[in-house]
């Protein structure tokens, strides 16, 4: 993965515990809503235990574009999918460094040849990360490929998908839960996946993402109802 240019992924947020320790990633999908992985919110369960850091390119450096919000409400996807919504205590200020990502408009998955990117803080196993946001082009694979015995062997569900290269491995690819997989659609980026789980980077075709198009209705309804 490469270090991302400042402002290139303005929806990528850092979900932190109340002591400001980075805990998971997430994406801004609305000035007052963040999408992340439900696994990041197992414990503690109180919204007040979490804070959202937006507009940053580095987990530890002080950046003028930083905006911090506390979490007012946590909504987990009711059927148990690994996604959740966080309602921020107040809307963020939208600017070049803090901007929502688009959600798919239909329940259809991205096309086969779409250009997609995985963004993550790039934790590298066994070493200290440089704490900078990173990205990598990351092809989406069909589930029949993901589920081949030599890859994920049937463990990818219908509302999930995997991606990556079917050969070799990607250095530093240990993506963090809650982060996005976004795909280019003309001049916009649309989020198609939430990083859910994955094997180590020595294994190809990982990690696995929650399939966002399957949950767009829930996301919209939940935001409207709350």
């Amino acid at each position: 993965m490469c270090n991302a240019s400042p402002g290139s992924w303005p929806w990528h947020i850092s979900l932190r515990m109340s002591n400001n320790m980075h805990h998971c990633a997430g994406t801004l999908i609305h000035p007052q809503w963040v999408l992340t992985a439900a696994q990041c919110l197992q414990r503690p369960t109180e919204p007040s235990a979490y804070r959202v850091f937006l507009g940053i390119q580095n987990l530890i450096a002080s950046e003028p574009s930083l905006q911090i919000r506390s979490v007012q409400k946590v909504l987990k996807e009711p059927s148990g999918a690994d996604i959740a919504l966080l309602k921020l205590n107040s809307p963020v200020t939208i600017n070049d460094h803090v901007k929502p990502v688009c959600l798919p408009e239909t329940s259809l998955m991205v096309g086969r040849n779409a250009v997609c990117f995985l963004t993550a803080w790039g934790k590298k196993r066994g070493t200290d990360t440089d704490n900078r946001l990173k990205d990598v082009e990351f092809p989406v694979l069909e589930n029949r490929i993901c589920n081949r015995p030599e890859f994920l062997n049937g463990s990818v569900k219908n509302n999930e998908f995997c991606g990556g290269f079917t050969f070799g491995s990607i250095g530093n690819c240990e993506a963090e839960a809650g982060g996005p997989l976004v795909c280019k659609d003309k001049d916009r980026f649309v989020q198609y996946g939430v990083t859910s789980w994955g094997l180590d980077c020595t294994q190809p075709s990982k990690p696995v993402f929650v399939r966002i198009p399957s949950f767009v209705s829930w996301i919209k309804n939940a935001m409207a109802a709350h």
Partner: protein
Amino acid sequence: KGDILDDYLRTDGVWLLTRNKQVYNTNNEKECAEKCEAERNFNCRAFLFTRKKLQCLTLAENTKMTVTFDSVDVVLYEKKIIHLKNTPMQGWKKTTAEILMGMNVDPGVTQQILLPDLITVTSQSVRARSRTLEKNLQWNACSVMVKTTMENFPEQSLGFSASTGMPKSLICMDLPQNTMHLPVSGLGSQCLSGKGENYRGRIAVTESGKACQPWNTQFPHKHGWIPDRYPCKGLEENYCRNPDGEKRPWCYTINGNVRWEYCAIPHCDGPEQGIADVPVQVPLPEECYQGRGQSYRGTASITASGKKCQAWNSMFPHRHEKTPDRFPDADLRDNYCRNPDGDESPWCFTTDPNVTWEYCNLKRCDDHTQKPAPNDPPATTAQNSDLSTPTTSDCINGNGKDYRGTVAKTARGRTCQEWSSQKPHSHKYFTPVTHPGAGLDKNFCRNPDGDVNGVWCFTTDPEKKWEYCEIPRCSSSEHDCGKVSTRSERAC
């Protein structure tokens, strides 16, 4: 001295995903276990060993929480007894010297008696110091593990006569620090004492309302806590248990994405000792409902007495028919308070096995907001009219004519005047009566006249009649989303 692997539960073919781990190359599982024991970077609670690659991954805490999936070549070893950092324990497989006897002679009167000097065991004999207590003991059938761990102790040396009803194999050696645990009556403890290792109650739902997976099944989660292998642990049905020294009882859940969770077990030191629910400090209700709350869609999940709600799609601890598929319009999600059957207010089944259901800790919105006019339609008949929170957002679309948020200050920080008030500024035209559909509630910023510059209000400053309010636009997610001003040079 036993095998180092005896300290671990073995599960074949499961890969367990954790963030905090360390990779080693070892020749076999034992060496990997030694790496786990010697792990300095974190509290090693499990390890994975891949037989083909001879890879050893030591895994950090909370391994039960992580996602697993099948992987043919791997063996997962999870520590049987968790050595919490603040309570260091030694392994039990040393010279047996002294027994702690945990028993539940008469549930409800004595939950647990710990008498370090009651019975003394050496490799040659066992001496009981109290005969009176013996009579009260009721022994369970228990014991595969005992046979192996107690094989050095001949039956007759145990010092108990046949009249005590204790068969040969009934001592379970499953606690650390040379501790023996004598199995007791089938009831065990019905409430939480200490870390709940002796809990034998029937709560089978986690603290977030997820139903527990039966211990004798391997779906959706594979695991090594197989009841037959650990007969002393009380791994019955799908009841919450603490076989491994966790902080409190837990269970694997039937949710494929949540491997395990703690359970909320009532404490033994509650007012009605033994069976009562824990007295909970019930917070003041934050959310409200209108009418009977049939369209309440909030996330409150605590009852009026402070009990946690049972998930609607769960049948534990209470079986019921109010399921999401039978009431598709009632939004029976998670364990949120709802009113699917036209009861007086939102309610839920509780996780307390003794209390089937209760009304929720919610208040009527009418208690703190203005009363609806007498001819207003009942809230329950209006779609979305009794949501827990108004269907508002604190951002505006377009000129904000539809804004129904609660910002009540102008961009310059002046407090807004109530729309229904004529002081300090008399306006007459923009009142809830003249513009009934404009949402002129209290003193919230609004745009009743469709001002192109956005929402505004009369101010409480006599010198300033009105001002615009500054409220962020929410349109970005729909119209300006996903655009970046900087394109990175992606060389790799």
